[in-house]
């Protein structure tokens, strides 16, 4: 999937995460995480972010994560929303059936 423009999803409220994603053509992945629980969960957050990017086939993107204590499923949902917004596409629900 190709990102077409920058996109944002999520909020800075407690238990949420704000994901900002930019196209990064020819420059690979650049993931930066800011989190109130980075010391404890930074690796787990990174793993989720990379997993969602891979599920969309995205290998080139600037991703900024501003985490306010979001659980894994919130990070996953906000990442999916940001990618769909940046790629101007709807989420592929049928892909979840595989």
């Amino acid at each position, binding site marked *: 999937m190709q990102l077409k423009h920058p996109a944002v*999803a*999520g909020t800075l*409220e*407690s*238990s*949420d995460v704000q994901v900002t994603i930019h196209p990064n053509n020819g420059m690979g992945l650049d993931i930066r995480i800011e989190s109130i629980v980075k010391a404890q969960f930074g690796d787990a957050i990174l793993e989720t972010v990379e997993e969602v990017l891979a599920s969309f086939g995205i290998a080139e993107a600037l991703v900024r994560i501003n985490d306010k204590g*979001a*659980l*894994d*499923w*919130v990070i*996953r*949902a*906000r990442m*999916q*929303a940001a990618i*769909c*917004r940046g790629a101007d596409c*709807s*989420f592929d*629900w*049928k892909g*979840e*059936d595989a």
Partner: protein
Amino acid sequence: MEQRVSLKRTSLYVSGSSPANINEAVFYNEDCIVYDLEDSVPTSEKDTARLIVYNALRYQRPADKYVIIRVNGIYSEFLDEDLEASVRARPDALRIPKVESAEEVQKISAKVAEIESQVGIEVGSIELWCNIESYLGVINALEIASADPRVVALALGAEDYTASMKAQRTKQGLEMFYARNALLIACRAAGVDAIDMVFSDIDDLEGLREDVSMARNLGFDGKTAIHPRQIDTINSFFTPSKKEINYALRVLAAVEEGKRLNKGAVALDGSMIDKPVELRALTTIAQARAAGIKIGGENHAG
């Protein structure tokens, strides 16, 4: 039609756009959580709310709650994708806003069936709650409640209903009295549950008590809660009292004794026990057990 017994005392709305509220909702005592994609979600956030609710239920589904997703309206541009997401989230039920005819229910049911089939879920397993929120919905309540086997409850929505009637909302709720009764009669005739309207003033617990007392006395099976602080008050009215449980046990014992002696008719305290009395007794016992009350020497909730 045979009436079913289930526990739907409280259904709490949580916004699909608030991860914090979704996290907190599992810790309250509501029987049903309604994950909302409709009124509480701004138009610009419909896409993320779907993903939030889908992922919440896929990865952190509450084990001891009846899970409902309220989708956007039948004629909304968001409905088709809401259904794609919601069916795949495998809720117990979908709650459909502003239902006004049987045909609308059947169209939704057919779409749900199509997605259930694609996903590999048993077709027909996801139930429907229909929100009745207009005079037309009230007029057609029986055909809506009987429209499809998926329909297990009708829920009354007061704000839109009173707007459709050009009525004023009051705390006493006399303007809702006819609609409440009409909806109840339809539910009883169709054998589905009747869920009462929201009490909007979250700071007025005395007003809530009066309102839920009326709902319970009329015959409702539960009430929608708009704030967690309303849950325990509502539950207390829909949990049978010790006196009611004891009477129900005596009714059921008399019925059993009648069957044992092969009696055609059974009386208790000078009154005949007919089928509706027996059904009310069974409902009381089932509600008590589901609420965790130990009955007749049981050492665990049955």
